[in-house]
């Protein structure tokens, strides 16, 4: 995939932990427009480590003059967000993938209920612009710990359909009450921590919502774990995976040809066949079925790890 170099046109602090980055073509050429909920993957050459993180686009999907993302600094994360916060300056050039969308609006819906937890607000910022342009009814519920951490507030439109829930102030979000009594044709979208997504799915199921009307996106970062080794079947070469490195990152660093997009276990692009497995694959993705996981013949290198004697991949 071609990852064009884009210029960091602006960096703005939105909250103590969140910064907004604006990318533009260095020559000022228009960028491809996208759809609400789309993300890009940003490449960062951090010393001798090549980091790739995916971020939801928060700018107007119809505006090709630039792409904007909001990045929360994760000090205990693997380093990508810290690198963006600390090492990247206006005027720098970064490789940014074309937009892809794993969290698109279902345009058959009559009404859209958007539920965000914390930095999970980001995909909704572009979706809201798409919904407003299409004249589609929506309501947004945004749950945050404190007002100071509610980075999305500055980016949200002034609207009676935006509901802020601040747990520090005692206004916790009641998902059951939000979903109960919604008119026929409503779809719900959740983005945020796993717990929030599970709670929305549970409440929707309890109220008899069909699964097709319930959408979610968890941009989970690859979990750290114990170091392990992986063998590439074609060459017999062995690649070491560090405790804070994902299998995908280790394979990329070793020069293995492997496609990827979301890097969060959701899109399925990096799915790889397992040719030998003596041990247990620690599946952390949302892509493989229960049966596929149990068979231990497929792995999603962006998220999953391995514990055991030998793991060989069809690479």
């Amino acid at each position, binding site marked *: 995939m071609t990852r064009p170099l884009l210029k960091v046109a602006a960096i703005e602090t939105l909250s103590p932990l969140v910064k907004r980055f604006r990318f533009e073509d260095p020559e000022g050429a228009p960028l491809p427009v996208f759809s609400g909920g789309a993300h890009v993957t940003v490449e960062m050459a951090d010393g001798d480590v090549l980091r790739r993180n995916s971020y939801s686009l928060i700018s107007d999907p119809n505006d090709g003059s630039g792409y904007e993302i909001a990045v929360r600094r994760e000090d205990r994360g693997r380093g990508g967000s810290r690198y963006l916060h600390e090492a990247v300056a206006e005027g720098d050039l970064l490789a940014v993938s074309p937009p892809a969308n794993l969290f698109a609006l279902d345009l*058959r*819906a*009559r*009404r859209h209920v958007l539920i965000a937890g914390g930095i999970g607000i980001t995909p909704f910022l572009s979706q809201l612009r798409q919904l407003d342009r299409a004249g589609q009814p929506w309501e947004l519920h945004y749950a945050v710990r404190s007002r100071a951490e509610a980075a999305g507030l500055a980016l949200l439109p002034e609207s009676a359909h935006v509901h802020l829930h601040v747990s520090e102030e005692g206004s916790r979000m009641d998902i059951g009450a939000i*979903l109960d*009594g*919604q*008119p*026929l*044709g*409503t779809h719900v979208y959740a983005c945020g921590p796993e717990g929030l997504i599970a709670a929305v799915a549970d409440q929707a199921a309890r*109220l*008899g*919502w*069909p*699964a*097709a*009307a319930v959408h979610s996106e968890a941009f989970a970062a690859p979990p750290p774990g114990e170091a392990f080794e992986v063998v590439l079947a074609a060459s017999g070469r062995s690649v070491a995976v560090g405790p804070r490195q994902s299998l995908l990152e280790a394979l990329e660093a070793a020069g293995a040809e492997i496609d990827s997009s979301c890097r969060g276990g959701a899109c399925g692009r990096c799915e790889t066949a397992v040719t030998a497995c003596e041990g247990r694959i620690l599946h952390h993705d949302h892509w493989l079925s229960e049966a596929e996981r149990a068979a231990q013949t497929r792995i999603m290198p962006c998220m999953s790890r391995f514990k055991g004697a030998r793991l060989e991949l069809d690479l």
Partner: protein
Amino acid sequence: MPQTEFTPSIDSRPTYAALVPQGSAPALMVADAAGAAALADLASADAAVMDRAHVLLVGAPAAAADRIAALGPVSVHPAPDAEAALPLLAQLLSTARMGTQLYLAGGEGLIGQVAAQALAAGMAAGAIQAEHRGPVARRMQCVHCKGFTEEVETDPFTCAHCGLTLFVRDHFSRRLGAFQGVCVDAEAPGEIPETREIRP
């Protein structure tokens, strides 16, 4: 009456299994005379399905309406035919909330029209169940004049609107709630294959 067994066909040809009760969720039920028995079977599997159910009976005798009313739904609305039933259904759909289940039982023409209206009202396909009961007859749309012919039992058949002789395809439109009928002798006018009864 046993459930209808469907001949293997293209994936888009809808087939219908037995209705499965979804507890006491809010429900809309639409059935014709033959389908009313499927609603009774549904309630005997789980009586709670009637707790919050509105039932629309299309062309069913008064005795069938009485039998359904005895199962304790919120309301029973009899209608002489689909044309009379659809505005009633539109009203029920306009006040329905997410989580409402739609149970359909009877002929394919009724199932197709009601499902199409429910989908157009925003209901998700996953909230719609249908069970085929009664005679095998199809609601057909002529691809040439776009007119609908109801209760088609033979292949080929004559379009009730433009008079062309139409081949009964298994190609089904969810939006229209109808199968597609295509001129059978367009290439060689007058060469019409033998008329057969259509299969389920």
